[in-house]
């Protein structure tokens, strides 16, 4: 078999709570530092210890890093899932197992090569503490992979040095375990395998970061000072990150005071209430949550929308409905967030595709929330939020200044004959707001009950409707201020493929393959709601469009049909929603099943 350089996928099957994450991370980071395009996807259970967990690594010289779905090498370390794991190895691929115990004949496949490494036996012989024996088994596995995949040993050594530099005992244990695994496979097997790594220079301007960390950093850079939250998977690490960065960057150098407040609320009802209270009082405030949290926040999101108070909600989407699958990914909250709360509401959504966009969009969320005085959602998801992505280094423009929207100062209020809260000016649908503590002339009564443009209570039909109509205009106005869609055109394309968020790499890969098959399609990734004008144009330009999204009901499709003039028969849903990050194969499976329809156009 010809050797394949930097083009393969491996999968590590483990039991959670055994320290496998640290070994997986080590391999992933080593490959990244070798300059090879790589992705790591953690497929983990909603559990702390004892359940199956997998980690997939894909390397690809062209930079395709969506999931691969067939694996060149399976590292089968979990007896519970062994049977299924064996089946996922591609024909001619390899399976690495712990040969401390004999392998059940039932699990043998003729077309798979077996690499037995007595990991448990070696670790029992070389380490004393029971916990250490378990943890080091994973590191010894990593050692074996160094040889099998030709991972640069010097890079690994440096990583271990950086990680355990000051902890001598731990560093030595890790080095010893790595050597055990490496020595054994070198002595017993042909190394490296026919697919393996070679150093590249693809990652010089890149970093390895998860979306939640990047989001948290974006909130710090965007000037958020009040954060309120309730712990929830997969959003918790947003607040962990925010806290960490605030400790690093927001301690006042003169007074030592915390130039931030993080409030762990009693529930999501309170979390959004705190955000609204803080925003009402002039702070940039946000909450981080997932679908179940947004469900609870619905009540007060309507208040913020109607009373016109900024609020930023980071929704790291997971699989619903109900508790659903908390550690699996989906884009199932689009409709919930776009129209959150009872009555007529429409909210602004920004939809990032990777950690770089999480960082870029977070300050934008605050700008839009304050400019349009309304809730804004950052629609991240578990795949983006919790997996490490190779992404361009984050950049910051020091010329950035927050857009605080129309807020009247004491001097401006002093000059006004009288202030009215909901009276728009200067051709915009947005009315100037005032903050408490500034001037008694700016005082008014913020209320979620019916109000007229002067801010007074009303039950008079025309007065109520006038305000509601302006809110709709305001939402339309926001369409010109949100990020434009990303559009990539191809020669001869008559069909479009539309997607959102973390589907991006898989869809791009699928489109390259389709082009090679003689079926070029244009690409559009929508990055915000309300839809930018270019979204409508793209829809109009194509015979029809596939819409790739990760939910059962085609929520993006529904929104496109509802909110643009596109006719329903021009929208072809491609729905992959079982909970794992998307693969180009998922997309191609659906498209090739519609090949007749396609050929009618590309004949």
């Amino acid at each position, binding site marked *: 078999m010809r050797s394949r350089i930097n083009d393969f996928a491996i999968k590590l099957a483990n039991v959670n709570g055994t320290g496998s994450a640290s070994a997986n991370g080590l391999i992933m980071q080593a490959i990244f*530092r070798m300059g090879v395009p790589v992705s790591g996807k953690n497929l983990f259970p909603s559990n702390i210890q004892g359940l199956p967990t997998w980690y997939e690594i894909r390397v690809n010289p062209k930079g395709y890093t969506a999931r691969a779905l067939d694996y060149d090498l399976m590292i089968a370390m979990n007896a519970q899932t062994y049977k299924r794991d064996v089946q996922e190895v591609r024909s001619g691929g390899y399976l690495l197992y712990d040969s401390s115990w004999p392998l059940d004949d039932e699990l043998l496949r003729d077309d798979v090569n077996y690499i037995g490494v007595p990991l448990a036996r070696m670790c029992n012989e070389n380490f004393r503490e029971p916990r250490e024996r378990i943890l080091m088994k994973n590191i010894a596995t990593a050692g074996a992979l160094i040889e099998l995949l030709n991972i640069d040993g010097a890079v690994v050594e440096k990583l271990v040095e950086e990680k355990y530099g000051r902890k001598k005992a731990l560093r030595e244990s890790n080095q010893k375990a790595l050597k055990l695994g490496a020595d054994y496979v070198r002595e017993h097997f042909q190394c490296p395998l026919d697919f393996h790594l070679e150093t590249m220079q693809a990652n010089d301007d890149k*970093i*390895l970061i998860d979306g939640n960390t990047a989001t948290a*950093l974006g909130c*710090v*850079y965007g*000037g958020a*000072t*009040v954060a*309120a939250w309730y712990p929830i998977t997969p959003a918790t690490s947003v607040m962990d990150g925010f806290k960490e960065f605030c400790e690093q960057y*927001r301690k*006042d150098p003169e*007074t030592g*005071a*915390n*130039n931030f*407040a*993080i*409030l762990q*609320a*009693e*529930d999501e*009802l*309170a*979390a959004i*209430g*705190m*955000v*609204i*209270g*803080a*925003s*009402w*009082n*002039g*702070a*940039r405030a946000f909450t981080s949550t997932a679908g179940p949290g947004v469900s609870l926040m619905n*009540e*007060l999101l309507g*208040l913020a929308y109607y009373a016109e108070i900024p609020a930023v909600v980071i929704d790291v989407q997971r699989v619903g409905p109900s508790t659903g699958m908390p550690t699996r990914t989906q884009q199932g909250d689009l409709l919930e967030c776009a129209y959150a709360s009872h009555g007529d509401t429409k909210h602004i959504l920004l939809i990032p595709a990777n950690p770089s966009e999480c960082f870029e969009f977070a300050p934008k969320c605050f700008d839009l929330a304050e400019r349009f005085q309304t809730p804004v959602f950052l629609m991240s998801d578990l795949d983006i939020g919790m997996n490490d992505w190779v992404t361009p*280094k*984050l950049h*910051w*423009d*020091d010329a950035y*200044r927050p857009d605080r929207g129309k807020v009247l100062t004491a001097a401006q209020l002093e000059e006004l004959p009288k202030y009215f809260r909901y009276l728009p000016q200067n051709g915009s649908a947005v009315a100037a707001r005032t903050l*408490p*503590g*500034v*001037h*008694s*002339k700016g*005082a*008014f*009564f*913020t*209320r*979620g009950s019916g109000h007229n443009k002067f801010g*007074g*209570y009303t039950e008079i039909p025309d007065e109520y409707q006038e305000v509601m109509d302006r809110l709709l205009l305001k939402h339309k106005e926001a369409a010109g201020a949100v990020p434009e869609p990303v559009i990539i055109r191809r020669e001869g394309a008559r069909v479009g493929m539309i997607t959102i968020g973390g589907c991006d790499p898989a869809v791009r890969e699928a489109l390259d393959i389709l082009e090679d098959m003689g079926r070029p399609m244009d690409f559009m990734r929508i990055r915000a709601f309300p839809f930018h004008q270019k979204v409508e144009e793209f829809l109009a330009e194509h015979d029809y469009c596939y819409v790739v999204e990760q939910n059962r009901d085609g929520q993006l499709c529904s929104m496109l049909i509802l909110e643009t003039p596109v006719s329903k028969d021009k929208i072809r849903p491609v729905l992959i929603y079982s909970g794992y990050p998307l693969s180009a194969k998922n997309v191609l499976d659906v498209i090739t099943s519609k090949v007749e329809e396609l050929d009618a156009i590309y004949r």
Partner: protein
Amino acid sequence: MPSIVKPLVSHPSLSRNELGLTIRDYEGSMSTLCAGCGHDSITAAITRALWELSTPPHMLAKLSGIGCSSKTPTYFVGGAHGFNSAHGRMPAIATGANAANRELTYLGVSGDGDSLSIGIGHLCHAMRRNLNMLYVIENNGVYGLTKGQFSASSDVGSKSKKGEANKMSPIDPVQLALSLGATFVARSFSGDKQQLVPILKAGLSHRGFAIVDVISPCVTFNDHEGSTKSYKYTRGKHLVATESDFVPPSGEIVAEIGQVGQTNVTMHDGSVLRFTRVPENYDVSDRQAALKYLREHQGEVVTGVLFVDESVPEMHEMNNTPQAPLGSLPFEKLCPGSGELAKLMEDFR
């Protein structure tokens, strides 16, 4: 109805506070509650307390939830920002507002439905945070706006207007507050302004969460024979446990009284809560003594400042936030800039 404009005529002889403002400057729009509603008396007491304390109107934030009581912030201090939020959520909104700007005086007005049913969780956690605010419950034991359902503070056996008796045991906000660690706990009666005004002033001056449960009869749905929240019943069972007076920071110098069970409590702002009567063996700084006293006087409406502790740090002190409002910090202080980001990127290699 709220469009009814109140005539704004001040008599020249009206006395002025330290800011040169008359009590009329602390009024709001016309009440739309039923004539004789206890809540209007509380509004009057709040108005007076704020005027006497010379709180600058624009430095007051008035917050409420939903219900008859929650309408009342429109009826006082028109020059202050108000926030009539959602049912039960006022403590959460107040927490965020306070986090953003600790310079304002926070006054929440709530009812028994708002605080003891739909929003009881938020109330409990605001107490845990020792949020610096005065939280007034206008407690009438009934859902007024929806016309007469029992509330969580209805006593066992208390009768509705239609004669039905409540069977479930009530939640007493005072005992709840004492057991959850609230740092200023008082009860009063809307019909006793003499008692209520100094209590409200002390509550406003308290550093931390001050809860004042004010029994406030509902003249329309809960002022009949058989009700335990009627004017008649409350007057008959009213037991004044402690009597106190409030001495502002710049006021007279008060000598320690030193009698057993009696005390002066110096508030955080230097004002003094002077207890003129405290039952023997009752220590206002002893949480257990307060709970014991309430148990011993079950069936009576025990009023007065029942517990004070000025020593507990409030939310901002726990969080080590700066004195200046977080929302007003210059952006340069908040954004680490491109140089720091470039450095940080090396951690993600």
